[in-house]
């Protein structure tokens, strides 16, 4: 019985370590960054309007 308990605590301690060391979700972070940058720089809704001057530069 005692060994079960000690094993349990050991497992709990180990899994606690695992949950703390959760990996960084790089793909989700990129998605989040894209969303925020599109809004800050108004890249998505600025496409159809002629507001962005660089788009009007003449073709070479």
């Amino acid at each position, binding site marked *: 019985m005692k*060994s*079960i308990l000690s*094993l*349990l605590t050991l*497992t709990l301690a180990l*899994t606690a370590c*695992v*949950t703390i060391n*959760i*990996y*960084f*979700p*790089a*793909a*989700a*972070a*990129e*998605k*989040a*960054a*894209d*969303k*925020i*940058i*599109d*809004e*800050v*720089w*108004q*890249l998505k809704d600025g496409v159809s309007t002629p507001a*962005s001057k*660089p788009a009007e530069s003449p073709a070479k």
Partner: protein
Amino acid sequence: MFIGNIMQKFMISFLLVISLLVNSGLVNAAADLDVNTPAISALKNSMQSRHAQLAAHYASGAIGLTADGLIAVRDATALPLKDRQGINALVAAENNDRNALYKEVAAGNGHPEWQGEVRNIFAGRWIDKAQSGWYFQRDGGWVKK
């Protein structure tokens, strides 16, 4: 022998439950990061309205994007005289917002320790999405996109 068997079964089911819990947490974390907290929305609005002032300076090369997800004055002589005085304050305000944004994205998702990684991701994405002609930093030097 018998006790050992029970213990083994108990341990296996316990581990199974724990791993399921951990996994579901991972799946949730990987699916999406929450970027709709009030703090993030406020920062986004602030940066969006400031961008109206900054856009021309990116285009003229007066300011550029740094490798650590911030902006910096690159060539003050590219600025119209009237803007030279205020440029440092403008850049500082933008960088304050950006630093706060990275912090909020990490903390808002329960992992303040992700701040540095969030910053790195943003740094790459700002540059990827920059218009051609804008400047960004690479290996300590300025590069024109």
